[in-house]
C-alpha cells in the first residue's frame, strides 16, 4: 500500500544493499574476487562466475516471477529441467542435429508448462498441488528418457550452450540477459504485465472485466516451462551429461526464493523481473562466496538461511515505511539537540 509511493530506487534499496554487502564479504574472504581477466577468448573471474552459475536461476526466476505474480507457484521447474536436459542429451547422443535436439527439449518444457497450466486454469487445482504432480513425475520421465543412466555427450554444438562464449561473454549469461530483456519488453510494452498483475490480485474480478484469465494462466505456466527447459539445457551442456536424478534438484526453491527476495508477493500482484534477477544473483553470490571462503560445505545451507532471513526482514521493514520512520527519528533528535 504505502510502498506505492516510495520511489523505485528506494524500494530496491534492501536488495541492492544486500547484494553489495555480500559481494564485499566475498571480497574479504577472497581478495581476488573482483579480478576479471580475458583468456582463451572469454572472460574469467569470480564475478563472471557468479553470473555464469547464476544464469539458470535467473532464467528460472523469470518464469517463476510471472507464475507467482498470477498468484501461483511452480514447484516442477527443477524436474522439468531434468526432463529437457535428458531429452537434449539423449537425442544428441542418438545422432539428431543439435538444433533439433534443443528445439525438442524446449518443446517438451513448453508441454510440461502447459500441462501445469491446464490443471491450474481449467481444472482449478491449487497451483502448489498441480505442480507438485509434475515435480514428482518429471524425475520419473527424465529417468525413462535416459533409461536410468547418466547420458554423457561430447557434441560441441550442445556443449556450447554451457561453456561457450560470444565476444568473450559466456553463453549462459547471454541467454539469461536476452531472455530478461525480451520478457521485460514483452510484459511492459504489451498489456501482459497489467493483466498478469490483475489476475494475481483478483482473478474473479478480472474475469468479470472480460479478461480471459484461463488462457492467460495457461500461457504463463507454458512460459515458465520454456524457461525451465532453457535452464535445463544449460545445466546439461555445462556438465556434458544429463543426470535425471540430480539435474536441477531443489532449484525450484532457489527460483521461488529469488522472486521473493526480489519483492514479488507470494499473494500475487505487482512484480518486477529485474528485481527477481537481482534476487537470483544474490543467491548465487552467496553460494559462490561460501565456496570461496572455504567454510565446510555443511555450513552452506545454514549460512544461506541466515542471510535470507536478514534480507527478508530488511525488506519487510522497508515496505512498512521503516526507513522513513528512522529518518524522521534522526531528524527529530537533531532538532531537539539544537
Amino acid at each position, binding site marked *: 500500500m504505502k510502498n*506505492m509511493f516510495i520511489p523505485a530506487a528506494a524500494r530496491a534499496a534492501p536488495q541492492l544493499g544486500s547484494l553489495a554487502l555480500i559481494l564485499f564479504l566475498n571480497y574479504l574472504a577472497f581478495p581476488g574476487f573482483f579480478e576479471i581477466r580475458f583468456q582463451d577468448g572469454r572472460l574469467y573471474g569470480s564475478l563472471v562466475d557468479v553470473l555464469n552459475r547464476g544464469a539458470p536461476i535467473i532464467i528460472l526466476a523469470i518464469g517463476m516471477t510471472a507464475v507467482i505474480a498470477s498468484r501461483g507457484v511452480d514447484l516442477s521447474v527443477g524436474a522439468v529441467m531434468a526432463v529437457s536436459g535428458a531429452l537434449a542429451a539423449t537425442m544428441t547422443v542418438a545422432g539428431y542435429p543439435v538444433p533439433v535436439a534443443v528445439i525438442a527439449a524446449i518443446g517438451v518444457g513448453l508441454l510440461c508448462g502447459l500441462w501445469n497450466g491446464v490443471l491450474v486454469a481449467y481444472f482449478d487445482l491449487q497451483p502448489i498441488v498441480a505442480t507438485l504432480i509434475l515435480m514428482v513425475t518429471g524425475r520419473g520421465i527424465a529417468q525413462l528418457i535416459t533409461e536410468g543412466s547418466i547420458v554423457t555427450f561430447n557434441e560441441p554444438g550442445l556443449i556450447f550452450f554451457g561453456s561457450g562464449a560470444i565476444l568473450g561473454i559466456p553463453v549462459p549469461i547471454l541467454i539469461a540477459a536476452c531472455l530478461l530483456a525480451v520478457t521485460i519488453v514483452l510484459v511492459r510494452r504489451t*498489456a501482459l504485465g497489467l493483466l498478469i*498483475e490483475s489476475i494475481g490480485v*483478483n482473478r*474473479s*474480478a478480472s474475469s*468479470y472485466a472480460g479478461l480471459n484469465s484461463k488462457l492467460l494462466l495457461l500461457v504463463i505456466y507454458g512460459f515458465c516451462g520454456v524457461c525451465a527447459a532453457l535452464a535445463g539445457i544449460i545445466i546439461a551442456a555445462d556438465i556434458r551429461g544429463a543426470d535425471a536424478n540430480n539435474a536441477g534438484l531443489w532449484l525450484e526453491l532457489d527460483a521461488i526464493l529469488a522472486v521473493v527476495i526480489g519483492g514479488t508477493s507470494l499473494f500475487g500482484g505487482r512484480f518486477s523481473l529485474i528485481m527477481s534477477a537481482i534476487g537470483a544473483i544474490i543467491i548465487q553470490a552467496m553460494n559462490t562466496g561460501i565456496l570461496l571462503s572455504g567454510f565446510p560445505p555443511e555450513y552452506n545451507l545454514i549460512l544461506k538461511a541466515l542471510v535470507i532471513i536478514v534480507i527478508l526482514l530488511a525488506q519487510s521493514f522497508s515496505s512498512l515505511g521503516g526507513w522513513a520512520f528512522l529518518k524522521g527519528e534522526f531528524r527529530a533528535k537533531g532538532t531537539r539537540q539544537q
Partner: protein
Amino acid sequence: MTDKANVLAVEGIGKSFVGFKALDGVDFSIRAGEVHALLGENGAGKSTLIKVLTGVHQPDAGVISLDGQPVHVRDTHHAQSLGIGTVYQEVNLLPNMSVADNLFIGRQPTRYGFIDRRLMERRAREVLAQYDLHLDVASDLSRYSVAIQQLVAIARAVDMSGRILILDEPTASLDRHEVEILFAMIRRLKARGLGIVFITHFLDQVYEVCDHVTVLRNGKLAGSAPTSELPKLDLVKMMLGRTLAVATHGDRRHRPPPEERQLSFKGVGRSRSIAPFDLDIGEGEVIGMAGLLGSGRTETAKLLFGIDAADKGEAWIDGRAVRIRTPQDAVALGFGLCPEDRKSDGIIGDLSIRENIALALQAHRGWFNRLPKREQTAMADRFVKALDIRTTDIEKPVKLLSGGNQQKVILARWLATNPRFLILDEPTRGIDVGAHAEIITLINELCDKGLALLVISSEIDEIVAYSNRVVVLRDRTHLGELSGDEITTSNIMQMIATETGEVPA
C-alpha cells in the same frame, strides 16, 4: 431528558488527526433501554466517535461520562470493563473454533489450570438460551450462518460488558429474514435495559428499531431527535445537508415504447440456476429487476453477461443471433456488468484507480494492443472528473477508496468501453446516502444518452424511481413485467409476495 437517565454521555468531544478534524465538539448521549441510531455519510465521524467511546482513540477535547461520572477510557479492555461492548460489521470471531470457545475465549472457566470444557459449554448454553438460541455449542462456529455468528458475537459482547452495546453496521451482510432475527435480539436487550448504539446505512431499519437518531456530518453534530418526531425526508436532509435529488422519471415511463428493442433474449435459462426467461431491452430503456435475495436476480445477470453459460435459449442483437458463452463474448457485443460483490468480483484492490478503469477496455483490445499509459491517464482523469470520483491521486490503489467511489471506478471501467448495454447488480449497496443519490443520477443520465440498462436492486423505491419497466423475480423464475402506471412499490411487493405464482396483470 435528565442527565441521570443517561448511562453514557459525551460532551464537546473533539479529535484531530494529522491535517483534519475528525470530530469537532460532538455531544452524544444514550439512556438505558434505548436504541440510538448513529448516522452519517462515510467519513462523517461515526467510526471515530465509536473508537473514542471504546478507548481506541483518546479524545483531544471533551468529557466522557458514565452514569454522570467523568471517566477516562484508557483502552478497549478498559472500555469492556466499564460495560461498553462493541460488535463490528465484519464478525471478528474464530470460525474454526466451537461456539462455546468463541463465547468464552480469553476467559475460559478453568479447573486445576485446564479449561473446564463441560462447565464452559453449559455456561455457553445458558448465555445463548437467554436469546432463545439453541445451538450445538460444541460444534464449529463456521457451521452457522453469518447471522447466527453475528448473534453469537453480540451475546459475547453483552456477556462481557453488559451496559452499552455498540453495533457497527451489523446488518450489512444479512438478508431480510436474518435482519428480523437480529432485531428481535436487539429488542430483547433493550427490554433488559441496555443502551444500544446502532450504526447503519439503511434508513428503514432506523425507523424499525431505533428510538432516537443522532446524525453526524463532517465531524460535527448535524442533529439529534427522537425517531418518532423526525420524518424520513428530514432525516435524509439532515444527513446530506441538502435535499435528495431522486426525481421520479415519470415522464420516461410514459414515453411510447421504442419501435424496436435491439437486445432480445428468448427462453434463456440454465438448469439449477434460473428458469428460462424472455427479456427485451431497447436503447434508452431502464429495466428494473426486483426480487428477494436468492430469487435469481444475480443468476440472470451472470447468464446475460456470459459468466455462466446458458444451456437453453437464444440471444438476438439487432436482429442477429449471437452466442454469449463467456464475458469476452459479452464485452465484444458492447455489454458491461457491475457485479453485486464489489470486493470479490469488481475491484482489483492492489491496482491503481487508473489501471482499474483501463482494465476492461484493455482486456477487450487484446493482450498485445496496449493502451498507452498517457491515454490511460487521460481516460482516468476524465472519468474521475465526470463521475466525481473522490481521490487525491489516480495512482492510488483502488482499495483505499470508499465503497461509493469504488463503485464509480467500476462504472467508469465499463463506460470506457463505450457500451450499449450495462447491467448494474445492486449498484447502491453499502454506499452512503450522498454517493447513492449520485449513482442514481448517473443511471438517469446514462439512460438519457441512449444506453440500455438493467438495474438489479433490493431497494424497491429506487427501482420505482428510475425504471421504464420492472421485472419481478421469485424462486429463480421471472414472474412477469410491470410497465407504465403499474410500477408502484405496492404492486412490486405484492408480486414478490404472491404465493401461488400467478402473475398479476
